[in-house]
Protein backbone atom coordinates (compact mmCIF):
# COMPACT_ATOMS: atom_id res chain seq x y z
CA UNK A 1 0.00 0.00 0.00
CA UNK A 2 0.99 3.62 -0.52
CA UNK A 3 -0.86 6.83 0.29
CA UNK A 4 0.00 10.46 -0.31
CA UNK A 5 -1.36 13.97 -0.07
CA UNK A 6 0.13 15.73 -3.11
CA UNK A 7 0.27 19.28 -4.47
CA UNK A 8 0.60 18.32 -8.15
CA UNK A 9 -1.68 16.67 -10.71
CA UNK A 10 -2.41 12.97 -10.04
CA UNK A 11 -1.51 10.49 -12.77
CA UNK A 12 -4.30 7.90 -12.57
CA UNK A 13 -2.62 5.60 -15.08
CA UNK A 14 0.53 5.41 -13.04
CA UNK A 15 -1.49 4.36 -9.96
CA UNK A 16 -3.16 1.71 -12.08
CA UNK A 17 0.23 0.25 -13.07
CA UNK A 18 1.45 0.47 -9.50
CA UNK A 19 -1.14 -2.05 -8.22
CA UNK A 20 -1.11 -4.33 -11.28
CA UNK A 21 0.02 -7.92 -10.77
CA UNK A 22 -0.80 -11.37 -12.15
CA UNK A 23 -1.87 -12.32 -8.59
CA UNK A 24 -4.91 -10.08 -9.01
CA UNK A 25 -7.84 -10.79 -11.31
CA UNK A 26 -9.50 -7.42 -10.76
CA UNK A 27 -8.46 -3.81 -10.47
CA UNK A 28 -10.92 -1.04 -9.57
CA UNK A 29 -9.78 2.53 -10.08
CA UNK A 30 -11.81 5.42 -8.68
CA UNK A 31 -11.16 8.96 -9.91
CA UNK A 32 -12.82 11.95 -8.23
CA UNK A 33 -12.98 14.98 -10.50
CA UNK A 34 -13.81 18.68 -10.08
CA UNK A 35 -17.33 19.11 -11.48
CA UNK A 36 -18.63 22.13 -13.33
CA UNK A 37 -21.86 22.22 -11.31
CA UNK A 38 -22.35 21.67 -7.58
CA UNK A 39 -25.85 21.89 -6.12
CA UNK A 40 -26.97 24.11 -8.94
CA UNK A 41 -24.08 26.62 -8.87
CA UNK A 42 -21.66 26.92 -11.79
CA UNK A 43 -18.19 26.19 -10.47
CA UNK A 44 -15.12 27.83 -12.03
CA UNK A 45 -12.47 26.13 -9.89
CA UNK A 46 -11.58 25.29 -6.32
CA UNK A 47 -8.95 25.19 -3.64
CA UNK A 48 -8.37 22.23 -1.36
CA UNK A 49 -6.53 22.92 1.88
CA UNK A 50 -5.51 20.32 4.42
CA UNK A 51 -4.28 19.80 7.93
CA UNK A 52 -1.39 18.13 6.18
CA UNK A 53 0.26 15.98 8.83
CA UNK A 54 -3.07 14.67 10.11
CA UNK A 55 -4.48 14.12 6.61
CA UNK A 56 -1.45 11.94 5.76
CA UNK A 57 -1.96 9.88 8.93
CA UNK A 58 -5.72 9.52 8.55
CA UNK A 59 -5.47 8.52 4.89
CA UNK A 60 -2.85 5.88 5.77
CA UNK A 61 -5.15 4.57 8.55
CA UNK A 62 -8.14 4.27 6.23
CA UNK A 63 -6.15 2.37 3.62
CA UNK A 64 -4.54 0.13 6.25
CA UNK A 65 -8.05 -0.73 7.49
CA UNK A 66 -9.08 -1.67 3.94
CA UNK A 67 -5.91 -3.73 3.39
CA UNK A 68 -6.56 -5.67 6.56
CA UNK A 69 -10.29 -6.16 6.01
CA UNK A 70 -9.96 -7.29 2.38
CA UNK A 71 -6.55 -8.97 2.79
CA UNK A 72 -4.58 -7.22 0.10
CA UNK A 73 -1.56 -4.93 -0.02
CA UNK A 74 -2.28 -3.71 -3.52
CA UNK A 75 -3.94 -0.37 -2.76
CA UNK A 76 -2.57 3.05 -3.68
CA UNK A 77 -4.35 6.35 -2.96
CA UNK A 78 -3.39 9.94 -3.73
CA UNK A 79 -5.38 13.02 -2.72
CA UNK A 80 -4.46 16.35 -4.22
CA UNK A 81 -4.53 19.73 -2.44
CA UNK A 82 -4.05 23.27 -3.77
CA UNK A 83 -5.85 24.95 -6.65
CA UNK A 84 -7.66 22.66 -9.08
CA UNK A 85 -9.34 23.43 -12.37
CA UNK A 86 -12.55 21.93 -13.75
CA UNK A 87 -12.08 18.34 -14.82
CA UNK A 88 -8.89 17.81 -12.79
CA UNK A 89 -8.67 14.88 -10.39
CA UNK A 90 -8.83 15.52 -6.66
CA UNK A 91 -8.49 11.89 -5.56
CA UNK A 92 -7.50 8.61 -7.19
CA UNK A 93 -7.95 5.21 -5.50
CA UNK A 94 -6.43 2.10 -7.11
CA UNK A 95 -7.33 -1.30 -5.63
CA UNK A 96 -6.24 -4.65 -7.05
CA UNK A 97 -7.44 -7.96 -5.65
CA UNK A 98 -7.66 -11.60 -6.72
CA UNK A 99 -11.50 -11.21 -6.78
CA UNK A 100 -13.67 -8.42 -8.15
CA UNK A 101 -16.25 -8.20 -5.33
CA UNK A 102 -13.52 -7.42 -2.82
CA UNK A 103 -11.88 -4.88 -5.15
CA UNK A 104 -15.14 -2.94 -5.54
CA UNK A 105 -15.96 -3.12 -1.83
CA UNK A 106 -12.52 -1.95 -0.71
CA UNK A 107 -12.59 0.94 -3.22
CA UNK A 108 -16.01 2.06 -2.03
CA UNK A 109 -15.00 1.77 1.63
CA UNK A 110 -12.00 4.01 1.06
CA UNK A 111 -13.85 6.80 -0.76
CA UNK A 112 -16.69 6.85 1.80
CA UNK A 113 -14.36 6.88 4.83
CA UNK A 114 -12.06 9.44 3.26
CA UNK A 115 -15.00 11.80 2.65
CA UNK A 116 -15.98 11.59 6.33
CA UNK A 117 -12.57 11.54 7.98
CA UNK A 118 -9.82 13.33 6.00
CA UNK A 119 -9.11 16.80 7.43
CA UNK A 120 -9.28 18.46 4.02
CA UNK A 121 -11.43 21.46 3.12
CA UNK A 122 -12.74 22.76 -0.14
CA UNK A 123 -13.38 26.34 -1.17
CA UNK A 124 -15.42 26.47 -4.35
CA UNK A 125 -15.18 29.44 -6.69
CA UNK A 126 -18.27 30.18 -8.75
CA UNK A 127 -18.67 31.70 -12.19
CA UNK A 128 -20.68 34.56 -10.60
CA UNK A 129 -17.65 35.58 -8.48
CA UNK A 130 -18.75 34.11 -5.15
CA UNK A 131 -16.58 31.62 -3.23
CA UNK A 132 -17.67 29.29 -0.42
CA UNK A 133 -16.37 26.63 1.93
CA UNK A 134 -18.30 23.51 1.06
CA UNK A 135 -18.62 20.43 3.28
CA UNK A 136 -19.38 16.82 2.36
CA UNK A 137 -22.81 15.44 3.28
CA UNK A 138 -22.67 13.43 6.52
Amino acid at each position, binding site marked *: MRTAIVERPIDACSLLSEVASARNGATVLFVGTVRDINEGSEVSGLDYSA*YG*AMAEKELASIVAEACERWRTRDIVVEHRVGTLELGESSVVIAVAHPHRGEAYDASRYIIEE*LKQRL*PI*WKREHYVDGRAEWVA*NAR
Partner: protein
Amino acid sequence: MTIRVLLFASYADALGPHVDVDVPAGARVRDVLARVRALATGKRIPDKPLVAVNQVYAADDQPVTATDEVAIIPPVAGG
Protein backbone atom coordinates in the same frame (compact mmCIF):
# COMPACT_ATOMS: atom_id res chain seq x y z
CA MET B 1 -0.88 26.19 30.98
CA THR B 2 -1.13 27.67 27.50
CA ILE B 3 -2.51 25.53 24.69
CA ARG B 4 -2.05 26.47 21.05
CA VAL B 5 -5.16 25.52 19.06
CA LEU B 6 -4.88 25.09 15.28
CA LEU B 7 -7.74 26.33 13.09
CA PHE B 8 -8.59 25.70 9.44
CA ALA B 9 -10.88 26.77 6.60
CA SER B 10 -13.86 28.88 7.75
CA TYR B 11 -12.69 28.74 11.39
CA ALA B 12 -9.29 30.13 10.35
CA ASP B 13 -11.04 32.85 8.31
CA ALA B 14 -12.77 33.99 11.52
CA LEU B 15 -10.05 33.44 14.16
CA GLY B 16 -6.76 33.13 12.27
CA PRO B 17 -4.68 29.97 11.73
CA HIS B 18 -4.23 29.42 15.49
CA VAL B 19 -5.15 30.85 18.88
CA ASP B 20 -3.50 30.42 22.28
CA VAL B 21 -5.74 29.83 25.31
CA ASP B 22 -4.96 29.40 29.00
CA VAL B 23 -6.46 26.43 30.82
CA PRO B 24 -5.74 24.93 34.26
CA ALA B 25 -3.54 21.81 34.57
CA GLY B 26 -5.69 18.70 34.05
CA ALA B 27 -7.94 20.44 31.52
CA ARG B 28 -9.78 18.38 28.94
CA VAL B 29 -10.66 18.97 25.29
CA ARG B 30 -14.01 20.50 26.26
CA ASP B 31 -12.30 23.06 28.55
CA VAL B 32 -10.04 24.16 25.71
CA LEU B 33 -13.08 24.49 23.42
CA ALA B 34 -14.91 26.61 26.02
CA ARG B 35 -11.99 29.06 26.12
CA VAL B 36 -11.82 29.30 22.34
CA ARG B 37 -15.57 29.92 22.14
CA ALA B 38 -15.22 32.66 24.81
CA LEU B 39 -12.95 34.67 22.47
CA ALA B 40 -14.46 37.70 20.69
CA THR B 41 -14.80 35.80 17.38
CA GLY B 42 -15.15 32.38 19.04
CA LYS B 43 -18.89 32.00 18.44
CA ARG B 44 -17.97 30.99 14.87
CA ILE B 45 -16.92 27.62 16.38
CA PRO B 46 -19.90 25.31 16.95
CA ASP B 47 -20.72 23.90 20.38
CA LYS B 48 -19.33 20.40 19.66
CA PRO B 49 -16.90 20.51 16.76
CA LEU B 50 -14.56 17.68 15.81
CA VAL B 51 -11.27 18.02 17.65
CA ALA B 52 -7.93 16.33 17.04
CA VAL B 53 -5.18 15.94 19.62
CA ASN B 54 -1.75 15.12 18.19
CA GLN B 55 -3.35 14.58 14.77
CA VAL B 56 -5.87 11.97 15.94
CA TYR B 57 -9.60 12.59 16.48
CA ALA B 58 -10.24 13.00 20.22
CA ALA B 59 -13.27 12.75 22.53
CA ASP B 60 -14.25 15.91 24.40
CA ASP B 61 -13.23 14.46 27.76
CA GLN B 62 -9.68 13.64 26.63
CA PRO B 63 -7.10 15.36 28.89
CA VAL B 64 -4.67 17.76 27.23
CA THR B 65 -1.16 18.82 28.19
CA ALA B 66 0.89 21.86 27.19
CA THR B 67 2.87 19.87 24.62
CA ASP B 68 -0.20 18.49 22.82
CA GLU B 69 -1.06 19.68 19.32
CA VAL B 70 -4.78 20.52 19.50
CA ALA B 71 -6.80 21.31 16.38
CA ILE B 72 -10.44 22.15 15.77
CA ILE B 73 -11.63 20.42 12.61
CA PRO B 74 -14.35 22.14 10.53
CA PRO B 75 -16.76 19.94 8.52
CA VAL B 76 -14.49 18.10 6.10
CA ALA B 77 -14.70 18.08 2.30
CA GLY B 78 -12.11 15.64 0.96
CA GLY B 79 -12.74 13.34 -1.96
